[in-house]
């Protein structure tokens, strides 16, 4: 029974820590949380420590260190336990992991959410039509393959003439 009580307590702590991470926003996309982006792969609080498993979106993402610091701070708000961060690369992060609610939040912030990432084996570059996040038009065109951050490309709407960021399928 004692053991069961303990694991129940650890489960409750893990749930509280997950909830705390839900408040950590991506520093470069401060409208969505790192949980919604699919960066947090696992979280387990046990007897001695909380282990948070993260995966980077892009290898060179400069926000990685900031995210780690914010993860430590968030988990430390719900527990006194030590926080250990592990980084995993496999399976490689995909924009397909972004939660549906997060896609709506990106669009509301003027960032067109990513289309389906193409299958790893495919060698054919398919370009989906991208909805303008301002007016909804599909008459949009790519201006540049990279935008303000590694995860975005620059687009322009031919109907409302507004430029916008497009979260690249990856």
């Amino acid at each position, binding site marked *: 029974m004692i053991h069961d009580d303990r694991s129940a307590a650890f489960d409750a702590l893990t749930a509280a820590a997950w909830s705390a991470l839900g408040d950590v926003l991506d520093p470069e996309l401060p409208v969505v949380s790192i949980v919604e982006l699919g960066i947090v792969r696992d979280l387990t609080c046990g007897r001695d420590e909380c282990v948070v498993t993260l995966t980077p979106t892009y290898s060179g*993402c400069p926000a990685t260190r900031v995210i780690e610091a914010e993860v430590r701070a968030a988990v430390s708000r719900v527990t006194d336990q030590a926080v250990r961060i592990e980084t995993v690369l496999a399976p490689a992060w995909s924009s397909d992991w972004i939660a549906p609610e997060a896609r709506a939040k990106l669009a509301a912030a003027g960032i067109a959410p990513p289309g389906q990432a193409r299958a790893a084996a495919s060698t054919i570059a398919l370009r989906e039509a991208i909805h303008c996040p301002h007016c909804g038009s599909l008459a949009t065109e790519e201006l540049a393959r990279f935008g303000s951050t590694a995860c975005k490309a620059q687009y322009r709407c031919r109907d409302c003439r507004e430029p916008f960021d497009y979260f690249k399928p990856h």
Partner: protein
Amino acid sequence: MLEEDIASANVGLDLLGQARLWFAYASEIDGRSEDRFAYFRESDDFRNLLLVEQPNGNYADTVARQYLFDQWHVLLLAQLATSRDTRIASIAAKALTEARYHVERSSGWVVRLGDGTDVSNARMQAAIDALWTHTGEMFVVDEGERPLIEGRIAADGESLRAPWLAAVRSVLAEATLVEPADSWMQATNGGGGRQGVHSEHLSRLLAEMQVLPRTHPDARW
């Protein structure tokens, strides 16, 4: 211009991130820190390809260098992603998702500049002609690599030559460029970047990159 400046920086950022993943793994095996690898090696301790240390030149030179590298990089990473060393495989699989995007962009620019104006075509052709000679060493297998290739840990450089050439030919054709008439490629036997024998350009790059930590060895950033 601004967009492409940002794009080049973003590609560079991806490649730096990938380099850190490789150095982090090398550190675990070798014991030297990531920073020791990056900042405290001399040029003849670096094993990079001669191609990637060539100067930026004009934009056609920059794009040509990037494209010839990217096209090889995706093939190399695809093979490393199946390595029996799971750490190598996971780094390569991660990097491959980024490298695929890089080659789409750089090949697109080879086509736009090659099939552009007379001036852009001439510059793109000159850039391909000048860099071509440095591409041969991408496919040379060092004797030391053989056991690693046979153990399915490292990639077999020789096997990348045919698919690389086929892809490059297709892009050059679309770009209305011609494959360099002088097909001589530097294929080193003890005398290229992979053996630590570099052009003077690497020393200048390293001087800029290494000056801060060498001047202030305990600097933190």
